[in-house]
């Protein structure tokens, strides 16, 4: 049975969430999740992004693509952090863009979302971060990530 917006809101309002809160949320809930993405409370909008990533599918991916451009860093961070749940072609597109985000938190979690399966664009962006990121701590983490991923994009 489709959850109403209020039911979804209540379900996703856990203070310290566990995977259980996403149980039973599927494609039927995407319209409500899209509404939650617009909620004023950034933490709740972020929770909707996590839920969309777990639902998957083309429409969820489209909603996450929009969320990746949300004005609120919290929501963009949620997209970056949840990219691991998405197919590579979707996650690569999101992560590559978020690696160049102006917010350090977004870049940090986009960096962590890169995987062995990530494509060359993601690796190139990480390489760029390793050399140019304004924050030393992010540059260091990008270097470590590159090593974990097996070196640079242009060995």
């Amino acid at each position, binding site marked *: 049975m489709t959850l109403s917006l209020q039911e979804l809101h209540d379900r996703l*309002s856990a203070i310290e969430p566990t995977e259980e809160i*996403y149980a039973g949320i599927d494609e039927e809930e995407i319209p409500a999740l899209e509404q939650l993405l617009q909620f004023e409370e950034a*933490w709740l909008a972020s929770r909707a992004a996590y*839920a969309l990533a777990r639902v998957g599918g083309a429409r969820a991916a489209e909603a996450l693509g929009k969320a990746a451009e949300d004005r609120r860093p*919290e929501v963009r961070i*949620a997209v970056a952090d949840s990219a691991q749940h998405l197919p590579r072609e979707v996650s690569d597109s999101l992560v590559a863009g978020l690696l160049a985000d102006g917010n350090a*938190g977004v870049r940090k979690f986009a960096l962590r979302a890169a995987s062995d399966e990530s494509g060359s664009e993601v690796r190139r962006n990480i390489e760029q971060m390793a050399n140019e990121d304004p*924050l030393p701590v992010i540059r260091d983490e990008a270097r470590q990530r590159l090593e974990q991923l097996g070196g640079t994009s242009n060995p």
Partner: protein
Amino acid sequence: MTCYSGFGSLADFGQRPVWIGDFDASGRADVLFYFVGDQNWWLGRPPAPTGPLAWSLAGNTVGFGQIWDGRPFWIGNFSRADRAQVLFYYPGDDNWWLGSHDGNQLQWSFAGNTAGFGHIWDGRPFYVGNFGRPDRAEMLFYYPGDGNWWLGSHDGNQLRWSFSGNTGRPCSQSIRVHFKSLIPISNAVRTFMDTQFLAMEDLFSQSGIATYRGTTEDLSADPALQALVALDVGACTLGNPTQEQNTLFQNRNNAGANDLVVYVVQTLVGGAGNFVGCATHPAGQPGAAVVQANARWLLAHEIGHVLDLRHVAAAPATNSDFLMWPNTGWTNVPPDVSSPEATTMLNSGLSVNC
């Protein structure tokens, strides 16, 4: 005036309560007593210049029923500057009655009702004195439940009660909470911290825990901490801080060993998505991290965790009335703290004696 003698022992206060005051406005002290056996009141006046007290019947209150039943009586010049009067409160109906001697008998008049305060004869302290007016006595009481003081002044008709300040609730234990923000402290952030703290202070005080506000520090300009504004909290299980939490919680400027530090961050990222608050902290560095959320008791919930509280069960649904409900959707707010939970917090190694 009819005089009497042979009352028996007036020292039997359980049967014959005695009060001293200038009840008849003669300028000298009189003796007033009430006899439980027949509900009569007697006034003993000192003759001038010497001689035995002259006793006169000062009325009968059988119409009130047996009034020497534990209810409180006070003596003072509540509505008239020239004479002492008898004021009593009846817990049964929360009515106040004032007895004023008219030269012949005590005349009783209704002096108001305080049902709006609840049943106030519950052990709270009452005081009589000329607090706000030199010409008449007033009633003052303190309510430990909310720390408020109320002053009752007779306006010639009834006692009128006015708020007279707040000195906080009594406490058994106390905690001190500091704030450190990784996001710039704007008016909105300051309001968030203030609101959260006040909600926690009010709630915990009902459990005998005083919450003191420590320092507030803006860490947003520290480049070494900028990446922690989006804090990785992992699974957020107590006793298992992430490396990022270990780094952040080292920042304890101005905080004593037992002080709790609350870090306000932009977002908390963990295993199952973003957290609204997380009480996981390194050993010896007690505190929690929260995000700016419109969840009034978020801070109290997280500090509750730090003080050893765990979530209440998901069932029954009425558990959402409790602070440790694991969701921001508390019901019947302010949320409840059960007696065992209060005991747990009072026994926490982080709370100290008041």
